[in-house]
């Protein structure tokens, strides 16, 4: 079987790709896509840990699945986040005529 550490390395690599996208891209839609990559990297990490940590139970409940359950919540929040991001990008485009995040500097000091 593939050891846990290789899944963690894959997750770290995917996370830094997303981080680079957030830092370097100027189009708002591409920034949102990079955030999705980072969320997926976190999910890989959680699910790999959940699968490898072994079957343990605390009292009546199964701690074993906690990683998978948190991953479900992360996917839920990602869906909500993308919906809101679309709305904000649309409003931004309608008000300012651009989706370039460098030109949205109204709150810059």
């Amino acid at each position: 079987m593939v050891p846990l550490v290789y899944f963690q390395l894959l997750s770290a690599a995917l996370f830094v790709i997303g981080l680079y996208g957030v830092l370097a891209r100027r189009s708002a839609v591409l920034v949102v896509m990079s955030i999705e990559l980072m969320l997926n990297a976190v999910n890989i990490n959680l699910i790999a840990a959940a699968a490898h940590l072994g079957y343990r139970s605390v009292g009546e409940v199964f701690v074993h699945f906690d990683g998978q359950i948190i991953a479900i919540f992360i996917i839920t929040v990602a869906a909500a986040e993308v919906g809101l991001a679309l709305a904000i990008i649309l409003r931004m485009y309608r008000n300012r005529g651009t989706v370039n995040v460098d030109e949205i500097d109204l709150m810059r000091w």
Partner: protein
Amino acid sequence: MSWVLFILLAVVTLVGGVGVVATRNVVHAALSLLVSLLAVAGIYLILFAEFLALVQVLIYGGAIIIVLLFAIMLTRSSEYPRISDNRQWPIGLVAAVGLLAVLAASFWISQHQSAGPESPALGNLANSLFTRWAIPFEVASLVLLVALIGAIIIARTGEDEG
């Protein structure tokens, strides 16, 4: 066999991810993201998370990519090729590579032996979700509702406000 699948899926995931942050064409970036997310669903299958793989394909492969494509099409997509990368992209690259080095080193040092992935029964997952995690589950549905209402209010046109 497991190694072959893992390496194949990892390469597809990372190539898709690099495609998202490197390509000029924003629609190609969305399609690269789709490839990467479907490969991640395969990785969930290696880890015996069948339900998560299914949810990944449905929500990411179906809903989120479609919403992103909507965002691209509803804004002027002809503008995107002219939006170059940030001038500080070398600093971003240095920060990303530095973080990768730190994360990889800490994962490598702190690795420990495990019995290998196990296959949990889907029924146990459901039991856990609806007993111990029942309140976070309800809060998650509330979060979705609030996000949906907020998105509608933010995105609607100004004429019928008030």
